[in-house]
Structure formats: C-alpha cells, structure tokens
C-alpha cells in the first residue's frame, strides 16, 4: 500500500452495515420529485417545460446557463409546478416539481449510442454536457468543463473509488456490481484525455473489490493500473491523491491539471461511459443510507429529486431519535433539518447519526494544550494551533504568514483535537478576518 502524504486521521469506518448490501431501487417510488434547477457549481439552468407538460424519464427539462449542465427528468409524469423548494445545500431555490405516474416511461428522444472514438472532441464534450454529468463524489463541478481543461494537458488519469469518509459505501458497491463497466469507463476517459497512465484507485479496506477487479483486469488485459491505498481520511481529496499516486505536489493556488494529472470520481466516470456508449443522461444515482439511527441501512439507487424522507422510509425508517441528519460524509457533509429536501446529483449518502456517534463533536471546548495533533494531522501542512492562538488571543498580525488559503476544509484538525476546539471553524473565521483586511471581526 502506498502512504505518501503526511497527515490525515483514522476515524472508525462504520462501513460494515452497508458494504455487503447491493444497490437496490427504492421500495416505493416517490409520489413527487422536486428537481432543483441548480445542481452544479458552475451555473444554473433555465427550464424548458412548464407546469402541465408531460415528461418522460431522461427528457431534458432545463437547459444550462453559462457554465451549467442540462437537467433531465428522473421519473415520468406531469410537471406540477416550478417553485422554490428546499435545497440540500441550504435555503429554498427553484425546482421543477413533477408528479410521478409510476410508469417510468423512457424518453424516446435519447441520443444514439455513439462510436465515440470516431467523433471529434467537441462533439464528445457536448454529449457529456447534454447528459448533465457533474462530479458525483461531493463537489459538483460540470464534468465536460473539467475534461475540456484537461484534454492533452495531462499524462495521468486518476479515477478514485477511495471513499475515505466513514459510512460511505456507494462507490464500493458500484465497483463490485459494475466492475467491467467501471474499468471500461476508466479506459475511455484515459483515451479521451490522451493520458499516458490510467489509474483506478481503491482504498485498502475494499479488498474484495480489489481482488475482483484484479481478476477482471487480468482477464481482459485492459491498460488500467489498479492501485490500493491505505484507508486514511482525507485520502480521497484531489491533492492528496495526486501526491500519493504520482508523488507530485500541487503548488499553492493551482490545481491538479497544473501538475499534469486529472482526477475523477468513479461514479462520474461510470456516468460518462453510460452517456457516451448508451446515451443515458444522469437521472439516478447510488446513495448510501446509514448511521446508527437508521433501522435498515442500505445502498439505494435513487431518482434525482427524490425527497430524503423517501430514502429513509426505504431504509426502514428511524429506529431512534437521531442526534443529527447529514447528506454526504460525516466530515464534510451538510446538516439537513428538512427531510423534504431532494437528492441532487452530488448526494452520495444520507446519514442519521445517534448521539453516541455524533457525541464526540458536541463535547465542550476546553483550553488548547499545544499537543500538536492538529499540526501533524493537517494534510496541507498548515498550523491550526497557531491559528487558534492568533484568533483567540487577538494576534491577527500573525495570520498572513500562516497561508490559510491552502486550507481545503477537510476537518481533520477539529476531529483530532483532544480539547475539542472547533479548529476548522476558527480557520474559516481567520480567513474571513483576513479577507476583511485584518480587522478583528
């Protein structure tokens, strides 16, 4: 196993409850889905349907604005309204609400499967944009733009199934159940980007997946390299992966492309393949429903726009009062207060944590004892202890030299602090102070 970066923490993985559960569809289709117009970080979308229109699965219902991607319907039925609805990223934003008729009629106008190796690059990118693909691993940037930035400029493609956060198993199941397609997708991306080296990264706790994939690789003799890395959070983050796989460090202020690497999530790669080879747009995704408060944790294949409440119902509901409900992983996820919020393209998990699981983060804050655990666990070599001192003791003149713009907000420092000081929040606060010109906020 490779362990090339310093820092990181080892939270308990809690993946046992869902890693053996295959991805299943919802027990009951949602009666209504609310698909938000903005599901990616590049830009929004403009609806092309109006209330009362009939839609089918895979039909385009919104065209992108500058920097966005297409939005498709994930169920067949009738558009009820276009109105503000709760968004899992916070607030209420416009969404297309569709009443589900339960038929799941596929759209007749889906694009033809393409012999993509014959088509030119612009058409391929347009197809990917039309399929509405965004990063499915948490960050939601439009994939066609990422690919466009990287074509011809990279020599290593890294497709990550590392899934370093606890509780998450959706990517793991994807590898096990669709291993061949995953390998094919890696190869496709590598050819598309004209990379010399294609690496599929798997975390060391997914050994059965590794074995399975290795067998497949040997059989089909694909040119994909399989690399196992140790399970350490935040190994799945872009800069850490690049460092571990290629040994190159991304200089401050730049991204992986600048060191000739492209990093994609395995679910995104899978979707790219589906879009190019089968013409399928993004209408469903795999979501892990887990946490100590869930009665039957499982992995679900869910239409985009399904309210989170339906996911919970399919997982048997809550068996006890949860201390907190999150979408995404426990280290970087978003707290949800309204279970009517829908699943969007980057929702990879729904977690309902018990008081015991969440308890560590609620402990009262005590004094900093200068243990240095935060410094040695920071994957970006920052110094949270000094930030604490600067912010709490008012020595903000020391902040500029701590180069806080490198912080990727992974949360390792808050996790590891024995005094339970909210260091990640303090760093965020410090950045605000710096942005406001050094005045104490």
């Amino acid at each position, binding site marked *: 196993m490779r362990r090339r970066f310093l820092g990181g923490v080892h939270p308990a993985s809690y993946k046992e409850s869902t890693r053996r559960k295959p991805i299943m569809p919802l027990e009951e289709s949602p009666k209504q889905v609310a698909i938000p*117009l903005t599901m990616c970080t590049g830009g929004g979308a403009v609806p092309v349907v109006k209330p009362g229109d009939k839609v089918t699965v895979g039909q385009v219902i919104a065209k992108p604005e500058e920097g966005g991607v297409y939005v498709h319907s994930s169920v067949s039925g009738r558009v009820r309204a276009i109105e503000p609805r709760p*968004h899992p990223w916070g607030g209420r934003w416009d969404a297309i609400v569709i009443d589900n008729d339960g038929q799941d009629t596929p759209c007749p106008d889906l694009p033809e499967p393409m012999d993509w190796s014959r088509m030119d690059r612009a058409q391929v990118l347009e197809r990917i944009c039309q399929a509405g693909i965004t990063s499915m691993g948490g*960050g939601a940037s439009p994939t066609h733009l990422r690919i466009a930035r990287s074509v011809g400029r990279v020599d290593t493609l890294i497709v990550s199934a590392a899934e370093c956060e606890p509780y998450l198993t959706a990517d793991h199941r994807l590898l096990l159940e669709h291993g061949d397609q995953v390998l094919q997708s890696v190869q496709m991306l590598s050819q598309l980007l004209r990379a010399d080296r294609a690496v599929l990264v798997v975390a060391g706790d997914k050994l059965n997946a590794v074995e399975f994939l290795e067998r497949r690789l040997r059989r089909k003799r694909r040119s994909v390299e399989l690399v196992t890395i140790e399970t350490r959070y935040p190994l799945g983050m872009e800069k850490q992966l690049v460092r571990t796989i290629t040994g190159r460090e991304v*200089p401050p202020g730049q991204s992986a492309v600048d060191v000739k690497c492209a990093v994609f999530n395995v679910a995104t790669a899978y979707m790219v393949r589906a879009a190019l080879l089968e013409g399928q747009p993004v209408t469903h995704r795999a979501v892990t429903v887990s946490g100590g408060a869930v009665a039957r944790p499982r992995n679900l294949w869910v239409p985009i726009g399904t309210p989170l409440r339906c996911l919970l119902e399919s997982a048997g509901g809550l068996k006890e009062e949860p201390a907190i409900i999150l979408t995404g992983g426990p280290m970087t996820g978003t707290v949800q207060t309204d279970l009517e919020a829908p699943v969007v393209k980057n929702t990879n998990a729904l977690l309902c944590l018990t008081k015991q699981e969440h308890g560590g983060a609620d402990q009262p804050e005590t*004094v900093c004892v200068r243990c240095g655990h935060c*410094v040695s666990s920071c994957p970006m070599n920052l110094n949270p202890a000094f930030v604490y001192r600067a912010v709490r003791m008012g020595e903000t003149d020391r902040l500029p030299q701590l180069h806080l713009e*490198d912080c990727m907000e992974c949360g390792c420092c808050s*996790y590891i602090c024995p005094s339970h000081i909210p260091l990640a929040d303090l760093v965020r606060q410090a950045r605000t102070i710096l942005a406001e010109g050094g005045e104490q906020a």
Partner: protein
Amino acid sequence: MNGPTIHRTSPQIAQPATISSTMLDVIIALIPALAMAVFLFGVRVLALTAVSVGTCVLAEYGYRRLRGQSNTIGDLSACVTGLLLAMSLPVTAPYWAPVLGGLFAIVIVKQFYGGLGRNFLNPALAGRTLLCTFPGLMTSWVDAFQRPGLIQGVDAASAATPMAILHTGAVPDLTLGQMLLGQHGGAMGGVPVLMLLLGGLYLVSRRVITPRIPLAYLGTVALLTLLFPRGDEGALAWMTAQLCCGGLVMGAVFMASDYTTTPVTPLGQTIFGVGCGVLTVLLRYFGSYPDGVGWAILTMNCCVWLMDRAAIPRRFGMGRFALVRSWGQQLKESLSAIHFVPPKLKFLARAGDGTMPGEGYLDELKGKVRQWAALGGVFLAVCLMIFGVHRATDYAAVRAETEAQEALLDQVMPQATMRTETPYYASGALSITAGYNDSGLVGYCVEVQAHGFGGLMTAVVGVNTNGEVTGVAVTSHQETEGVGTDAMTQEYLDQYVGKSGTIRTAGNNSVDAASGATATSEAVTACVNQALAIVANLDTEGGVDYVDGEV
C-alpha cells in the same frame, strides 16, 4: 451566481478522547512503574506519592479558588504533575520535599502563567529541579530492596547509584536485566526502566504521544554515547548503561513528551528531542551533577518558542527549502543595504570653508579643546587621587598582605623561610611565589584555579624543585558547606604532599576522593596537577630538576 452554493461545514464526528481521558491514560501508563517502585523500595513510595499528588491537587484547587477562576482539577493534570514529581524523588526524601516541590510546580511554574496549556517549563521537572538545589536532599540514594519505613530519618544505608558510577567514567556492575527491572538505587520511579517503556508503548498505542520525541531523544543519546564511550567495557556496554540508568527513560517518555512545553510542529519536536539528547550527554560527561536529564529538558523548554517559529511545516506544494530560501533572500536584501562608506576624515570640519583663513578653525579648535579638557582634567585628577591613595596606604596594605601570605605559604611550603614574588608568568597561574630557605630555592608556590562543583575554586599549591607537592591550601571556593568542604580539610589535603607527576583519581599515583564530594576532590586534584605542570614547564634560568613520578 444567484443560487445555492456548496459550503463545507465542520465535521460532525470527532475522536472521543478529551484532556482528562488523555491524562488518565498517562496515569495508567505510570502505574506499572509505581508498582515496581513499591516492590523495590517499600510502602514509603506510596506515602510520598500520596503527599505529592495531594499537594498538587490542593494547590491547584486552592489557588484557583482564591483567584476566583474556574476549577480545573477535573482535567487530572495536577495529578499527573504530582505523580511525576514523586517518582523522580529518592525514597528517602523527607515529606516536606514533595510539598515544597509541588507548591512551586503548580503555583509558580504553572498557574502564574495561566494554568494548563500556558506554562513554558515542565512543572514536575521544575519542582524536582528546585529540590535539587537543596544540598543533600537529592543525593542520598538507597539501593534496591532496602525498604525504609514510613517514618524514618535518612539513616537508610546510602549506596552509590549507577549514575554516580557512570559519572566517574566507569561502567556499573549490573546486568541488562537488573538495569531494566531497576534493581539498583536511584529515583523511585526512574528506576524500573522496563515498566516505563511498557507505559510508553501503551501511550503510543493510545495515540496520546507520538514516538517522535522519545525516539529522537533516546536515539541521540545512544548515538553520542556509542561514538564517545568511556570506561573499560567497550562502547556497547557504556551505551546500554547510559540508556538504562538515571532518569533518561522517564525523562524521554514522560517529561520530554509533555504537550505544553514541547514544540507543536513535527520537525520542531524532532529538533527538541535531538537537542535534549545532546545537552544530556554534555551534562553527563562534563557537568557536576551525575544526571543531566532534568536540566537538559528544562533548558530546551526555554527554547521551544524558537523551534516553533523556525520549524513551521513546509508549505504543501512548495519546494523543500522554499522557506529557508526565502529567509535567505530576506536576509540578503537586508544586509545588502549595508555599505561601507569611506570616511571623510577631517579633524576640524570648518577648516578652510570660506571665511577668513584660520578663523573658523580657531573657534572649532577652542570648542574641541574645551570639551576634551574637561574630561582630561577629571581623568588626571582621578589618576592623581588613585596614585596618592596608593602611596599612602601602600605600606600598610603591603604589610597586611604579606602577613596573610606568610600564613598561607607556611601551610603550603613549610620548608621555606623566605618568600619572594617572582616575575614569571605562566598561563593559568594567578601568581607564582618562590620559596627559599638556607640551602637555596625550595620550590614554587603557584596559585591556580579549577572548576569545582558550584563554580571556580582557587588554590595555592607548593611544588619543590624535585617536582613534588609540599602542600595545598584552598583560598576561595563555591562549594557546598558540609558536603564539598569535606574535600578541603587539612587531612584530605595532606594526602597530596609528596606526590608528583600527574595525580589521578584512581589507580597509581592517586588520592582517595572524599566521599560525597567527588567533584570538589577532582577540582583540588586538577589544581594540583596544573601547579605541577606549571612548575615543570617553568621557564627560568636555573633549571628545575624534577623527578617524573609514575604516570
């Protein structure tokens, strides 16, 4: 963009340990060593520990209560301080020792600076160090399995600890097993090395401490003692003895890895460990105290702020020496602003600048003369005063001095009846007096200095023309009353009479050191050796015949 944005929030999980659970882990790690200490030294160990822990906890509670601050004894750090303080004492320590040490450690070293996390010296170590400055307190060690009772004076039989033996340059006569289990004299908790190592492993496995500092510390000591061994049993035996004896393992595992008083950055921690190791070896080899661990760690604690500033982690994505290079750049820019400007030397500024020739010149001259005349006048007056006083008191002073000198030199060179100061100079000699009697030159009395236990010691040594010592007298010293002065009694100094050549501390041509005053005895011996060497190499007309003694 007018829409929802992803923003990361804080982690919703955290590792379960807290400060009190961490301190509890440290206490658990110390229990095996404590148990072993009880086995070796008896129940008094427990009594002393109880007194120490009690004092520390009460001191912290009382101080904070009096100052109206929050109650912090729940974080168990005072317990740990008390435990560590007790474990570094000898079992024969009186009960007031941990009380004093605990009060000092908690109130002054820790609470005066703000309590947990704000002190700059290790409290337990500072308390122990304070007690070290009391003579006799930390020097009466008993051997293992001597179990002094709960209430007793210090009459348990003292034994030389392995550390004392190592300090003289010999390897103690113990097997590795005995050293690891602690079957010898020493500090209560510092002795069972194996138990301390087990405790350290427990702490590392619970992720309480990283092995960085202990390994750096122990590794440096091992390397240095391996490279520069002493004693006759080979480098490896010396290294093992140095590692296992004394408070090194306890210091490395429990004191040097204390959170608050060590650097925060990984590289800084390594530098700290290495620095502690270097200082420990330096002190053990050349210092007065047998064990340098405590002092080394405290000295490094004072420099931690520097290590934190200097050893910031390398910025992710920048080259390995980018920071150093940028510092170098800044320094170069700063220094390049400094130029040497050839001076325009003019004695008088206005000479020849316009005006009538000579006019400004004269004014300037007058001003300058006035300035310097004042100073010169004062100087002259003072000189004259000194000279006058010197002449007036010279004879009386000289007479008094001569009488004192006579008495001293009587002690040092009884055979001589007449003495004169010589104009000879030798490096290291404060003065050289020649002694004569009826048959001619008897020898020289040389005043020399050497480093004793507490500082410089000055002695006068008489050496006759055969190169033998006629007498020794110590004129000034900074040794401890009652301890070091044992080595300066007449009967002790008489041992030197008649010796020549180079006097050793053991073996041929040696004197017996006064017990308990090894450093002082060595200092006296050093003085004598210096004097002998000076006389042997003295450059005079009439040569000095000397007989080289057994070397």
